[in-house]
């Protein structure tokens, strides 16, 4: 879906969101709430400039609009695969963005993210996956790596992987798998502004993904393992 | 009386002169003195090479006449074909392209490392005919007997307009090839990295060289002898300890050659530490026929080494070698000159010990690196790894080995070279090093070879060293004892598990088989901490910054 229609559906009460390059930013109104909007578009990869620009946008919200909710609109093909970006320390820029998001959270900004097109591995970690609530449109694509490439790297047959992916959500691409694993809170369907206002009513700033994954039966080990660590001598 | 027909005694010279005239007219004004521009290389080759000629294309163990190889693939097979190629090493794809293109048909060579699998495929399809697989010395020798090149395509670092060549430290095969060709009516063409007014030193005199081509880019050269100490395992450290204490110290080995594997690199790195701690400095390992292995740096710096003569050089070692003229054979210009033919001769006749690795050993001690899908040849190992029956001068190590042999097989007093095969009983992926039958037999059948390609014959091997211990074959009385001695160090391979336990224990009591503990070696001491350098960077440090490793070996 085009980011403009997504924004219109989430913020029927008005918005001012602009695109500069592959960066989207602005704000929108949803009922009583005004939310900051920060995102990317056109399946862009995320290099140092884009990560820095998103971080700047987050810092601005922290500075100028205390406690304003932040909505990340996610559409990325992942981190930029360039020698030059690695040379400059792309991981550091991504981490900086993540730290800005965390700082916003600690200062009372609810953080929501919506994968409206696609979210791939590294590009997703520093913003979308940092949210208090992470949602996706049902047709959104979320993955680390496609099965064919995965088969090459792990030297496990693609057929075998395909077969296993039917019964296990643990490695195969797909928003549904992330939902089962607790990586997504929900798939947003129907009235997106209702989805957002419902989230804003109940949001808190703890990381629920492990218990969600456990409850949904997709990730049965992470939760008990952490419990055991906490209970160890 | 009929007047005898006038015998022509300079037919070959006339043939060469006609070729040179053809070249002069083909090149026209582009030929200045002996210098031919790179874009005329193909025309030159078509002018001087005739169908059926023997062409020696310099492909050495390390440096490659790669521009000339490429140019040769571009000549018109309608004009030049059926060539008989002579090459010590087949390293580049072009070397085999020649046969697919219909330019060449017959090959005599020594070693085909990187092209071994493709060579086997082409032999299987009948695309190439192999005259013979030689050792280096053998092939060079035939250049002077029945395989004298009509045309030699060689490579050097620089040349002047008169054709004087400077090879740099990687002289390698060039002198042997050029001498055979130039003095028997052949034509010598050299590709060079640069043209200079005056070469730093004359490695090949200009009047032995007919043409010089400045190549568009510097020739390919492979750092074949660089072993990263980081990859040496604790098992290899243990084996190196056994080699030093159980063989080098035992015989007082002063003059030797090492193979190129990690096993022998471990020995080199244990000299300044473990060997020194045993008080062996000055008593072992002073004179070498060896390439400038970077892993030798700590031993050289520790004063273990008096001299090293080299087959070739090693990328990155140039400055270090130049700064150690007491050790290496450096010319008046300050840089090293290597020579594969002389160093092979030195390794054969003037060394008391050869130690190297292999892929397979059978129960008679024959060893081979041949596998069914690869025709790789031997290089120099068989020349080093063979008793020099022609040797007459004595040395303590040689005499002691001879004495041990005579303890089992009486005969007239003579010495014996130590030939040591050093292998782990299993290679990667659990491939056993000890086998009932060498793959060489199957390869011989597949490629219609007259004899199986054995690298080192069992009768030449004196010791087999594995992580399980050392088998001294000199002390075996008969074939049965030999077999049990070999099985006795063959570990958990099928051959090892099939040993006669009682006989093996008996051989151990007689000192034919020695375990680490029999040599007073505590296996727990075999850690990487014993290595004088544990990384390439340590080697650079040990060299005082003189060693400059190629980029691919660095992790900084």
């Amino acid at each position, binding site marked *: 879906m085009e980011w403009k229609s997504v924004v219109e559906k989430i913020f029927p009460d008005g918005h001012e969101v602009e695109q500069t390059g592959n960066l989207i930013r602005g704000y929108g109104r949803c009922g009583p709430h005004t939310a900051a909007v920060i995102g990317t578009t056109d399946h862009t990869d995320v290099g140092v400039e884009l990560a820095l620009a998103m971080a700047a946008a987050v810092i601005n919200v922290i500075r100028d609009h205390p406690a304003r909710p932040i909505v990340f609109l996610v559409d990325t093909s992942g981190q930029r695969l360039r020698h030059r970006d690695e040379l400059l320390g792309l991981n550091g820029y991504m981490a900086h963005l993540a730290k800005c998001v965390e700082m916003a959270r600690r200062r009372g900004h609810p953080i929501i993210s919506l994968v409206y097109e696609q979210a791939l591995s590294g590009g997703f970690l520093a913003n979308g996956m940092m949210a208090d609530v992470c949602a996706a449109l049902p047709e959104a694509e979320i993955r680390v790596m496609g099965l064919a490439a995965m088969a090459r790297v792990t*030297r496990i047959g693609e057929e075998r992987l395909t077969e296993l992916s039917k019964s296990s959500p643990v490695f195969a691409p797909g928003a549904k798998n992330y939902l089962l694993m607790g990586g997504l809170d929900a798939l947003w369907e129907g009235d997106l502004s209702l989805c957002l206002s419902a989230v804003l009513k109940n949001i808190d700033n703890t990381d629920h993904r492990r218990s969600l994954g456990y409850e949904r039966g997709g990730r049965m080990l992470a939760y008990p393992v952490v419990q055991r660590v906490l209970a160890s001598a | 009386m009929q007047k005898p027909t006038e015998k022509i005694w300079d037919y070959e010279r006339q043939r060469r002169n006609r070729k040179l005239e053809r070249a002069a007219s083909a090149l026209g004004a582009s030929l200045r003195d002996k210098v031919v521009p790179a874009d005329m290389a193909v025309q030159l080759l078509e002018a001087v090479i005739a169908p059926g000629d023997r062409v020696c294309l310099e492909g050495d163990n390390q440096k490659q006449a790669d521009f000339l190889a490429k140019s040769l693939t571009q000549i018109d097979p309608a004009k030049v074909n059926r060539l008989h190629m002579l090459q010590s090493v087949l390293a580049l794809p072009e070397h085999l392209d020649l046969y697919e293109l219909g330019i060449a048909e017959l090959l005599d060579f020594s070693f085909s490392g990187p092209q071994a699998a493709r060579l086997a495929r082409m032999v299987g399809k009948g695309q190439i005919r192999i005259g013979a697989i030689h050792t280096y010395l053998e092939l060079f020798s035939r250049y002077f007997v029945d395989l004298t090149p009509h045309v030699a395509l060689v490579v050097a670092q620089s040349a002047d307009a008169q054709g004087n060549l400077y090879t740099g430290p990687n002289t390698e095969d060039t002198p042997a090839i050029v001498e055979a060709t130039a003095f028997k009516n052949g034509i010598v063409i050299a590709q060079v990295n640069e043209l200079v007014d005056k070469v730093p030193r004359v490695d090949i005199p200009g009047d032995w060289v007919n043409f010089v081509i400045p190549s568009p880019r510097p020739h390919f050269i492979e750092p074949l002898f660089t072993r990263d100490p980081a990859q040496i395992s604790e098992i290899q450290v243990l084996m190196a300890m056994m080699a030093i204490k159980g063989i080098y110290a035992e015989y007082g080995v002063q003059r030797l050659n090492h193979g190129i594997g990690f096993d022998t690199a471990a020995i080199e790195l244990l000299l300044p530490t473990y060997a020194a701690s045993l008080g062996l400095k000055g008593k072992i390992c002073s004179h070498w026929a060896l390439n400038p292995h970077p892993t030798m740096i700590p031993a050289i710096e520790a004063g273990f080494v008096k001299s090293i003569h080299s087959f070739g050089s090693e990328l990155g070692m140039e400055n270090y070698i130049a700064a150690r003229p007491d050790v290496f054979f450096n010319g008046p210009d300050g840089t090293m000159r290597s020579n594969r033919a002389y160093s092979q001769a030195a390794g054969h006749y003037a060394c008391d010990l050869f130690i190297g690795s292999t892929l397979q050993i059978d129960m008679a001690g024959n060893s081979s690196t041949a596998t069914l899908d690869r025709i790789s040849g031997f290089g120099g190992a068989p020349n080093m790894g063979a008793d020099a029956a022609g040797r007459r001068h004595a040395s303590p190590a040689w005499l002691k080995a001879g004495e041990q042999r005579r303890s089992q097989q009486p005969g007239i007093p003579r010495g014996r070279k130590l030939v040591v095969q050093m292998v782990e009983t299993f290679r990667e992926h659990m491939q056993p090093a000890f086998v009932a039958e060498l793959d060489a037999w199957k390869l011989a059948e597949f490629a219609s070879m007259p004899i199986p390609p054995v690298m080192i014959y069992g009768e030449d091997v004196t010791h087999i060293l594995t992580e399980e211990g050392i088998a001294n074959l000199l002390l075996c009385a008969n074939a049965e004892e030999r077999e049990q001695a070999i099985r006795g160090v063959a570990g958990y391979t099928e051959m090892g598990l099939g040993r006669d336990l009682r006989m093996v224990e008996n051989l151990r009591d007689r000192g034919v088989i020695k375990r680490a503990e029999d040599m007073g070696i505590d296996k727990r001491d075999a850690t990487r901490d014993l290595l004088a350098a544990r990384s390439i960077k340590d080697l650079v440090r040990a060299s005082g910054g003189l060693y400059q490793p190629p980029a691919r070996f660095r992790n900084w």
Partner: protein
Amino acid sequence: MTIENLKYRFDNGTTTRGVTAIVGVLGSGNLEVLVEPAALGGACEIEVKTAANGFGAIWHAVMKDFFARHRVGDIRVSVNDAGATPAIVSLRLDQAIETYLAQGRTKK
């Protein structure tokens, strides 16, 4: 790839005090060995999980020799293997049992 599971039991070992020890890393050509005390009536039980299949006879010979070298009983030895050679296997087993026993000696 499949994992082969091999089990061995050697009786009449000497009961020796030790403390659970782990050595080695489950990386290519290497293995990890875990030695734990276990009341097995003097026996030494060994379980091997290996990614390299078809070497049961070699494992058996290696383990027999291992037990003959140390004769330690009342232990459970667990091995995860990623294609280590017998030389490496023997070395790690020796290191593991030595660590097990050494820790047992220092333990109050």
